[in-house]
């Protein structure tokens, strides 16, 4: 792991359009903060993928590419804790109803692996419904193993 020489807390916040370009932007922003936080290349790959999958969920499934709906994005590094928060304005979904992509009956499905990958790559992952509408996810990775 690269030595973390940057002890200055950092927060980046953006209000993004519901487009695939925003997915790219958010991934780049998250990686820039994560790189300064001192993550190595392997962790940077995992963080990038987790952020990408979360943004795709927000843009495609939450906001359905609507020009009238935004995605709130933030990336924060403080005291060894790197966190990304992504919120959409969609109708929400049943968190408990997500199919297991590793189950035999789901293995050959062409979709449904995003959240599984996020959980695999990050140390913590939380989802919550927003009022009156929307879903917010929080992805956390620590620069030092907890």
């Amino acid at each position, binding site marked *: 792991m690269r030595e973390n020489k940057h002890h200055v807390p950092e927060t980046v916040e953006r209000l993004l359009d519901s487009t*695939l370009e925003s*997915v790219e932007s958010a991934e780049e922003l998250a990686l820039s903060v994560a790189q300064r936080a001192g993550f190595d290349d392997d962790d940077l*790959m995992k963080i990038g*993928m987790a952020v*990408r*999958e979360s943004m*795709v969920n927000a843009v*495609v499934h939450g906001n359905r590419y609507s020009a009238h709906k935004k995605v709130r994005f933030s990336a924060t590094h403080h005291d060894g804790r790197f966190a990304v928060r992504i919120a959409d304005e969609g109708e929400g979904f049943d968190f408990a109803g997500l199919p297991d*992509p*590793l189950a035999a009956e789901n*293995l*050959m*499905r*062409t*979709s449904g*692996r*995003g959240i*599984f*990958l996020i959980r*695999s790559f990050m140390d913590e992952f939380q989802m919550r419904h927003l009022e009156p509408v929307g879903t917010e996810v929080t992805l956390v990775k620590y620069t030092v193993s907890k």
Partner: protein
Amino acid sequence: MSVKLNTRQVGDVTVVDVAGRITLGEGSSALRDTMRELVGKGQKKILLNLGDVTYIDSSGIGELVSGFTTVTNSGGQLKLLGLNKRVKDLLQITKLYTVFDVHEDEGGAIRSF
């Protein structure tokens, strides 16, 4: 860079050289269109060379699965060549590594059909 696809024939095996990013949007769509075109032409032996794939997301994984199903259902075979660590790790995490016939060298892959 998005994705670049180059199709070539080695005997009766169609090799698709994939380079770049297989992600939601242009990348995954291009791969899907190529696979459908090959199956539509009746190609039964298809080898996806992923040696120059720099990035793949869950949509890209989905297209690999879709391609496998489409080719298999048409009576053909789809195999993978040259997985880098990122792609290999993703296929292993998602329990798909053993679904595909994966090869390290092209000669061996061609002979395996």
